[in-house]
């Protein structure tokens, strides 16, 4: 019963059957496609949406800013809902090795988020492809550019999920974990705009999780996962 595979299977069953988490991957995909389609439908060269130069791929993928909310909630709830109901005591009684449980959670969230992200990104790009030419955008895009943006977005959502999972494991409660991730995503960039003094301004801008390059985001995710793992193994329950 204690093999990692069993732990994985248990996590998958919990994710699939818990009221909150079951439909969140679909919601992430729907928000990504819907948000992107909405922006693509109204954006035209010269309008507000294009104030800072318009890139059709970026426009199509702008729904990610909504879809990421569902991804974050999914990752947080995977951990905190167990603490909420006390199920964690049963889980740890069945699988006393903490790292097996933790690894199983990471694998489960990955398995839920990555397909949803792929679906959402593909759908959003397709919606943009259908809607944007009607608004006067040239769509002769290099396949490589599009594939790169798509892969980068999927990677972003995946790393964001790991970051949220790690933070949630360290904090154990839904409200603080969720608030912390929301603050990282939405308030950090605002802080960057508030601070005019260099080098702080450039530093805050460059390392904001919402627009950091994949390497920096991977660093955040790794740090959060490590912190979560350390707390999870060191603490009782």
């Amino acid at each position, binding site marked *: 019963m204690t093999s990692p595979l069993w732990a994985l299977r248990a996590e998958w069953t919990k994710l699939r059957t818990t009221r909150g988490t079951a439909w969140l991957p679909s919601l992430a995909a729907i928000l990504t496609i819907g948000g992107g389609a909405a922006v693509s439908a109204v954006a035209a060269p010269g309008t*507000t949406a294009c104030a800072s130069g318009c890139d059709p791929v970026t426009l199509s993928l702008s729904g990610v*800013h909504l879809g990421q909310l569902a991804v974050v*909630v999914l990752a947080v709830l995977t951990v*905190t809902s167990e603490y909420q109901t006390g199920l964690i005591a049963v889980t740890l009684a069945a699988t006393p090795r903490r790292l097996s449980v933790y690894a199983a959670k990471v694998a489960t969230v990955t398995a839920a988020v990555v397909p949803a992200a792929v679906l959402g990104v593909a759908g959003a790009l397709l919606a943009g492809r259908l809607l944007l030419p009607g608004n006067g955008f040239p769509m002769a895009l290099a396949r490589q550019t599009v594939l790169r943006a798509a892969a980068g977005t999927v990677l972003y959502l995946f790393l964001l999920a790991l970051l949220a999972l790690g933070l949630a494991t360290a904090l154990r409660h839904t*409200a603080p974990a969720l608030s912390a991730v929301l603050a990282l995503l939405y*308030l950090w960039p*605002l*802080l960057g705009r*508030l601070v005019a003094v260099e080098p702080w301004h450039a530093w805050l801008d460059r390392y904001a999780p919402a627009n950091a390059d994949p390497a920096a985001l991977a660093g955040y995710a790794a740090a959060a996962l490590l912190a979560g793992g350390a707390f999870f193994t060191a603490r009782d329950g």
Partner: protein
Amino acid sequence: MRGLVLAEWTKLRTVVGTAGCLVAMAGALVAVALLISSGNPGTYSDTDHVDEFRFVHRELTGDHTIVARVTGQESDQPWAMAGILVKRSLTPGAQYAALAVTPGHGVRMQTGFTTDIAGDARPGPRYLRLTRTGDTVTGSESGDGVTWDRVGTVTLTGLPPTVHLGLFVTSPGMTRVHPMRPGLVQIRPNTATFEAVRVSPAGPAGPWQALDVGGTSAPTTVEVNGSVAVTGSGDIVGRSDDGSRIVAATAGTVFAALPAIALGVLVTTSEYRWGLIRTTLAAAPRRGPVLAAKAATVAITAFPVALAATAAALLAVQPLLHRNGYRPPTYPDPSLLDPAVLRVVTGTAIVLTLLALLGLGIGALVRRSAGAITVVAAAVLVPVAATPFAPSWLQRFTPVAGLSVQQVRETDDTLLLPWAGRPWMGIAVLSGYTGLALAAGYWRQRRSDA
């Protein structure tokens, strides 16, 4: 009812999460205000004027006349400008005379950063003409390019023979409304189209060059014949009190919104989490009074804390701002008794209280922290994050509209906050959302068992 409020107060006071939210809310208000005010002057410089614009110009010696027809400009900001300009040098602050079409204030002739002469206010394309004769510059306008009306004549004492003459474009969002309102101000460049650009006498002249006066980019050579489009931002204006000393003190509101929302949400959802709600409802079976007591408790805790923190932030940052150049006569010392200041301070506390109550209503409706916090926080933070790209109704009709109460001067048409000129409209929008959320929460409490 008193007993109910007392019970709710005890829960709020003793539960670590809710108490932490109050501390975080007050902390965010004060910390962000201090951060922005300490050695962080934004665009402020020691000059008494702003002099930034896009200039397509050529260097000319002697007396000349420049004529151009402004066929249109993209910006709808009342004080955006597209027109013609003569300037002593390309250094910011150098002597100039400008004649421009504005979207909101008709044709204007300006000089010395403070002199502003009104011309025709009729809409539509206008011909503009500047004639330089020695020290004097005369501006004229025309609808057809045949009959000209004089707008004004100004004297630029000691203007050297060689000057820069050309087309210019501004878009004031960046400088009139300084960057202390993160995420609430849209900064968009302005693009104007000029036709029939003519300099006479033609004589020997350098090529047309385009550059951002007050900017850092290198000048480029451009062709000016037929119609030419010029895109730029900035402003040419004397510095005036734009409310910075008050805006800086309330810059933390968006940051304080997150803990305020979490507070409201947790007051309802944490009871469901621990099953305490069953005890609460066994003691007071009527759902309405229980929800009302929760709302009252949140309001009477969040409002005074937010009010005290905002007032404290306002007072604490003044010495810092004063030291960083925000001082009289341009920026008078604010007083808490000034009606506008009073409105901003109490309005900020009202906005945070309404956001907490919005969280409470949604919390009572969905009964789960994750869903409630995400939905309410997204309703506030997503419009803020999307501001640079989103159409303006997104700000006006989402809960973030409440921040309109923070516009310092009610009638200032250059403020780009939602509901400019109508500061209480945003509070009305936010109250609508809060009322709906509380009603929906009440409905759910009545309808389904704990």
